[in-house]
């Protein structure tokens, strides 16, 4: 197998087990003596607990135990927040695993039932009596920050006051004097203002969350199977909360059915499950129901943004000013503080030269489900601001949106470009990406067609997005500086067996992204073994080296780099061994496609398999060379990577019904060299559709009392097959200059781009009707109402 395997569309090795039903997800695990846990969720947005009576539940058939906060208090430590955002007056509110006094969102756990069967556990939940004294609730983050709003927390974990529900106040400012830029634009330019509601979204991985915990009282060892994106981080947090030392704690992420950010956080229910297993000395399984998932598993987005753009009269951007209220929900989830700040505010320069910018972000406690990373995590919310404002600027100036972008793009660069937020982008050609997209889609001709006017009451709209994202998180030194309580490197162990077969143990933990395949492709292309001879192990903290998780489009970018470098170490050693076997000097050796040969005489060669055998039996090795053929690498990236691209959405809006149809969508993405283009395209498809979902259909809605109205798949509108067109996916290839393989990551690209593209397209369609803004999701009702209002006035 040759280096051509890099870039080939081989079938995924994950699939045989998945298409035959033999894959094992957390919910499929059965252990001898296992019992089942069910969590009693409070169902109140905000209330004081005045009484809990568990006797009846305890006496119910099959029930093994019932525990409340009284039992877990002092045994389970409070839930940790692991992103301690600096310089932001961060106030972390206490977050108990089981609430004892006050509940602050409907998913707060107040008790757990353990029973012989899941049915019996769920039945017994109804028999627990809890008296609540309801308290006023607040869901909207901006409202929650206002004086007089119901307050969720009096004190933070350090005993300091929390006031105005403010969890943090973070600022980014850079470049010239932003106030001056706006003053000048007011006097002799244009200022565009917009209010953007980045609605709360429910991630909806098709597999809900769950945990199985097994505790061995004799050895003190705990095994936790969990639906997690980051088993090693969970091991660490589980150790902190449960007190089981890290060396006695094994976390296994078996097959994981999607995450999209919602399986990054550690959750109270996981540790309550562990608590039960330790108390009872029996394996305990807890699997979330879908309704429970809606109430308890983290949500995404939830920004209220007031944004302003300053520009010259000929369309050059001179400044950007934003104020954001970011809903955090009732408590700070594991990585929550970093999402609307570091991953959002630092990306506000986008693809553009922006001379001055400032953003204030207020993280606000509300009575909603805690908010975490959700596919794109902060970057879609930044891209949307820029892409919406740029379109509005174009409209104001009577320019084409494409031309305003072209006018403001950072020029092509291939080895670093520092933007106003101090990030140093690695490589990019934003004008090139857009012009290729425009050409490929026949954009100017589409504009012509649009000028012909509506047909049959249907208005056509075109929406562009140019985006750049930060991923491949990231240099650990930076992680430390921005308060992330961990490193962001990755590691890999590559081991050759005597027959030349390869085992790879890797810290990253893919859960649908196909890296068992792409990792094997990396190994095969770096050292010329057959891809089928490489087995990838991941997701078990006992057998794999430390890894910092699969999120932020970092697994191929960072984990893949660690792997490639480990294989290169093996290649270096193999060359020395081969030289010895061929009685040649190392300097005279060459390597190609799995063969080490003497320069100029390709027949004097040893294959990597020959070398693997000799290295393993060690009958004859050069002096000073250890037996075995194995290498470990820790790769700490020198910088982030910055994939980018340009997308075009085409819609048709029926002015009579408000119905929006996405009639065409073209995505051009540049994630560097593609290891497996089929997998890359799959990531783009899924990502785009999730972003389309936000623009058109999805949104978590709460009522006045803080009840989640969209509490099931009946009420929360997930994208369906029949609502979507065939997506056209194309690419350009710009390697990252600092990455061993040049690759950048692609998991979130589609989502980051598509929401703004679709939104812009709908607004473009509605322009002739006088509509300039509608809150997402752009449901027929909202669009229809906006048209009525605009026409009526």
């Amino acid at each position: 197998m040759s280096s051509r395997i890099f870039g080939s569309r081989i079938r995924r090795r994950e699939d045989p087990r998945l298409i035959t039903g033999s894959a094992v997800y957390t919910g499929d695990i059965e252990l001898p003596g296992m019992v089942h846990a069910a969590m009693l969720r409070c169902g109140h947005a905000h209330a004081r607990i005045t009484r809990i009576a568990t006797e009846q539940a305890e006496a119910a058939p099959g029930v093994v135990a019932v525990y409340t906060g009284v039992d877990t208090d002092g045994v389970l430590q409070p839930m940790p927040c692991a992103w301690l955002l600096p310089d932001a007056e961060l106030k972390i509110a206490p977050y108990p695993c089981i609430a004892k006094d006050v509940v602050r969102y409907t998913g707060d756990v107040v008790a757990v039932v353990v029973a012989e069967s899941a049915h019996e556990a769920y039945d017994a939940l109804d028999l627990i009596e809890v008296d609540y004294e309801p308290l006023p609730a607040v869901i909207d983050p901006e409202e929650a920050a206002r004086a007089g709003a119901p307050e969720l927390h009096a004190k933070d974990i350090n005993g300091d006051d929390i006031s105005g529900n403010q969890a943090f106040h973070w600022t980014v400012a850079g470049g010239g004097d932003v106030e001056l830029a706006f003053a000048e634009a007011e006097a002799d330019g244009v200022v565009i203002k917009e209010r953007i509601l980045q609605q709360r979204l429910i991630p909806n991985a098709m597999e809900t969350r769950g945990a199985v915990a097994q505790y061995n009282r004799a050895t003190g060892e705990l095994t936790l199977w969990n639906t997690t994106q980051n088993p090693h981080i969970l091991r660490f947090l589980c150790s902190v909360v449960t007190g089981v030392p890290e060396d006695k704690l094994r976390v296994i992420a078996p097959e994981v059915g999607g995450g999209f950010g919602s399986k990054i956080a550690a959750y109270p229910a996981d540790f309550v499950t562990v608590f039960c297993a330790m108390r009872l000395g029996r394996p305990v399984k807890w699997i979330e129901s879908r309704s429970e998932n809606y109430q308890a598993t983290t949500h995404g987005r939830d920004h209220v943004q007031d944004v302003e753009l300053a520009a010259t009269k000929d369309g050059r951007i001179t400044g950007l000013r934003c104020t954001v209220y970011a809903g955090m929900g009732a408590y700070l989830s594991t990585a929550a503080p970093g999402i609307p700040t570091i991953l959002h505010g630092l990306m506000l320069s986008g693809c553009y030269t922006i001379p001055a910018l400032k953003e204030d972000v207020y993280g606000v406690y509300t009575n909603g489900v805690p908010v975490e990373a959700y596919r794109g995590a902060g970057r879609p919310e930044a891209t949307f601001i820029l892409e919406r404002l740029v379109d509005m600027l174009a409209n104001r100036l009577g320019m084409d949106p494409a031309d305003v972008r072209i006018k403001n793009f950072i020029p092509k660069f291939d080895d670093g470009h520092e933007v106003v937020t101090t990030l140093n982008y690695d490589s990019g050609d934003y004008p090139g990406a857009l012009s290729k997209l425009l050409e490929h889609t026949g954009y100017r001709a589409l504009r012509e067609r649009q000028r012909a006017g509506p047909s049959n009451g249907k208005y056509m709209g075109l929406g562009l997005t140019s985006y750049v994202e930060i991923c491949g998180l990231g240099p650990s030194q930076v992680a430390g500086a921005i308060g992330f309580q961990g490193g962001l490197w990755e590691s890999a162990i590559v081991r050759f067996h005597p027959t030349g077969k390869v085992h790879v143990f890797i810290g990253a933990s893919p859960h649908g992204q196909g890296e068992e395949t792409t990792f094997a492709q990396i190994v095969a292309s770096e050292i010329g073994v057959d891809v089928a001879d490489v087995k990838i192990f991941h997701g078990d903290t006992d057998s794999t080296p430390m890894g910092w998780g699969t999120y932020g489009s970092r697994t191929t970018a960072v984990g893949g780099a660690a792997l490639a470098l480990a294989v290169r170490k093996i290649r270096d050693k193999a060359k020395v061994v081969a030289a010895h076997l061929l009685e040649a000097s190392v300097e005279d050796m060459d390597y190609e496609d799995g063969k080490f040969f003497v320069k100029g005489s390709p027949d004097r060669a040893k294959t990597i398999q020959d070398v693997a055998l000799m290295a393993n039996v060690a009958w004859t090795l050069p002096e000073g060379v250890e037996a075995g053929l194995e290498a470990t690498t820790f790769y700490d990236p020198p910088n982030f990577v910055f994939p980018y691209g340009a997308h075009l959405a085409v819609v048709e809006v029926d002015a009579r019904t408000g119905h929006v149809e996405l009639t065409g969508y073209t995505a051009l993405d540049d994630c560097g060299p593609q290891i497996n283009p089929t997998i890359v395209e799959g990531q783009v498809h899924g990502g785009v559709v999730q972003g389309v979902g936000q623009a058109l259909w999805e949104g978590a809605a709460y009522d006045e009392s803080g009840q989640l109205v969209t509490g099931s798949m009946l009420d929360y509108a997930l994208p369906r097959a029949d609502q979507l067109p065939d997506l056209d996916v194309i690419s350009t290839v710009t390697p990252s200059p600092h990455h061993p393989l040049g690759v950048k990551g692609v998991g979130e690209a589609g989502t980051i781009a598509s929401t703004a593209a679709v939104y812009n397209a709908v607004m473009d369609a509605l322009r002739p009707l006088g509509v300039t803004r509608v809150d997402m999701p752009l449901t027929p009702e909202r669009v229809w109402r906006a048209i009525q209002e605009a026409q009526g006035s």
Partner: protein
Amino acid sequence: MKVPVRITVNGRRFEHEVEPRLLLAHYIRDLGGLTGTKVGCDTSQCGSCTVLIDGVSAKSCTTLAVQADGANVTTIEGLADGDALHPLQESFWDRHGLQCGFCTPGMILAAYELLRTNASPSDAEIRHGLEGNLCRCTGYQNIVRAVRDAAAQMAAADQ
């Protein structure tokens, strides 16, 4: 009060005493020991639990085990013919019609039903036929391609 049920799953006969409220999905998973059938929701929306009952697809989370008494149930584990994958399984693999795989068993069985009732569907018909099955990973595009391919292969095999 338990009632006896006899259900043949993938050719194997099971006899159990079950509670009348037991859902077929849980019967298959917990009593049949076949965990390929997934449960993704509790409101009958996602289609992850789709199986074939006497050759016709059904959401096993809305079917009681007692309703399937005497029936032949096929789950994803029973779709391949020995080691030979069903054309739909092959085409989902070929076309990258799955990512995390959680929706896949139900999706493949829903596609089986679609092709049973319409041997050469258009893309629009495929999309329409699968609207009761949710996938959060793939954006459906490669699923549509996979079903299209499988239809062509099955038609060719029939000739």
